[in-house]
């Protein structure tokens, strides 16, 4: 069982963080030319859509938003017994020459991002790939860092960071949970 230990962000904090990220993305890329936002399933997808809506408000441009399922690229498939459910990858445009911003909810070990980069490379040759996350909780196992971070949250390995979004969970909230004593 997981026990909620602390609340990291409420709905206002998430809204403000995304607002800042939307500006940082266009600032760093000097505009919106060739930008594509790609959300990593599951919760990276609504985050990418919200960022696209904010960028539209700021810059007046509709950015293409893609959906990436990284299941086929996971590095632990041969270790787990039940294969995770695979969903469709939906990228509306060719990625070759584009500036791809990967969007995910939590950056932890970096393995998901590694898988996502491999998946993107198989779809084309983007000009560059950047990474935007709502929460960076540390404990990287690969040399990967985010370009845009909503909130840095130092955590212990025993804890999990759980992002809840209206689109997927009915509420906007980020909490730190702790694995309760005894078996997981």
């Amino acid at each position, binding site marked *: 069982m997981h026990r909620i230990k602390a609340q990291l962000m409420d709905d206002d904090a998430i809204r403000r963080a995304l607002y800042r990220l939307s500006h940082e993305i266009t600032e760093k890329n000097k505009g919106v030319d060739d930008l594509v936002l790609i959300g990593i399933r599951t919760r990276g997808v609504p985050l990418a859509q919200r960022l696209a809506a904010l960028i539209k408000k700021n810059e007046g441009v509709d950015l293409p938003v893609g959906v990436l*399922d990284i299941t086929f*690229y996971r590095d632990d498939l*041969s270790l787990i*017994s*039940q*294969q995770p459910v695979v969903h469709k*990858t939906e990228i509306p445009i060719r990625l070759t020459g584009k500036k791809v911003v990967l969007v995910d909810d939590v950056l932890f070990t970096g393995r998901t991002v590694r898988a996502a980069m491999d998946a993107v490379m198989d*779809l084309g040759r983007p000009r560059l790939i950047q990474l935007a996350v709502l929460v960076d909780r540390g404990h990287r196992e690969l040399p990967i860092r985010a370009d845009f971070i909503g909130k840095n949250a130092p955590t212990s390995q025993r804890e999990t960071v759980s992002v809840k979004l209206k689109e997927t969970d009915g509420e906007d909230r980020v909490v730190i949970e702790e694995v309760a004593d005894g078996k997981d």
Partner: protein
Amino acid sequence: MSFTQTRTLGARRHLLGLEDLSAAEINEVLETAIPCKEIIQREIKKLPTLRGRTVVTLFFEPSTRTRISFELAAKWLGADTVNVTVSTSSVQKGENFVDTARTIEALGADFIILRHSMAGAAHLLAENVKCRVINAGDGAREHPTQALLDIFTLKEKLGRIQGLKVAIVGDILHSRVAMSNIYGLTKLGAKVMVVGPPTLIPKGLTELGVEVEHNLDRALNEVDVVNMLRIQLERQQKGLFPSLREYARLYGLNAERLNKARKDLIVMHPGPTNLGVEITEEAATDSRSVITAQVTNGVAVRMAIFYLLNGGRANDEFLS
């Protein structure tokens, strides 16, 4: 380790037939095949998912499309593949195909795809090897991946299986494709009608909830889908029907029959076609025919099966 009702295909080691599968497991394959189909439409069709796995196709009966389809599915998922085709004529009497398979396993195979003329061959093999076994056709018993790709194609075209009425036409008696389709379709809530001369329809099908019809024109008025089975020419000598011409006249799908049929009928054929016998070229290339889609979907469905059966060590421990 106990398995509840939510058992999925991933908890199995083998795919031996649709008779054993639950509707949930069949649906799991159909759902997983959707992202697989997206992969095969890409420019770069290559995934790392089965990297390091070895897939051996062991065929004791000739086949081109099924073998290639399995091979491409495995390759596009990143596995290495080896083909072993044993021509029946060279098999000496008494040779034990299980021994052959054990050798292949000892050489490092993770999956063996077996086609054999003996009903139950895949089941027998599965009991005797530790690697995963996929049945690519065992005698007249089952050809589960063909039925799964047929059902996937139908669901893709019509959006549902529940409530559909499907006619399977031809040599039902010798058809593993028919049997697997009957199991799969009825489990998902479709109605199945078999159509053919009485000599080619096995007894006892009505007990599976299957309707039997001997008149193709009557059947065409009643169904949403018609699946035309290949007449295996080698069986013709047995005298189960008078002549190919007679068969084609009574049970062949041609332009004349299609013109009278409903405009949204779906025409299927597992291939390879005997053009002019069970189906004419005009009928096979009619806009209502999904034969080409079936071939493409076959790779997607087999990728899904590889993926779902490719569990980790936990599978081996709990289910050996």
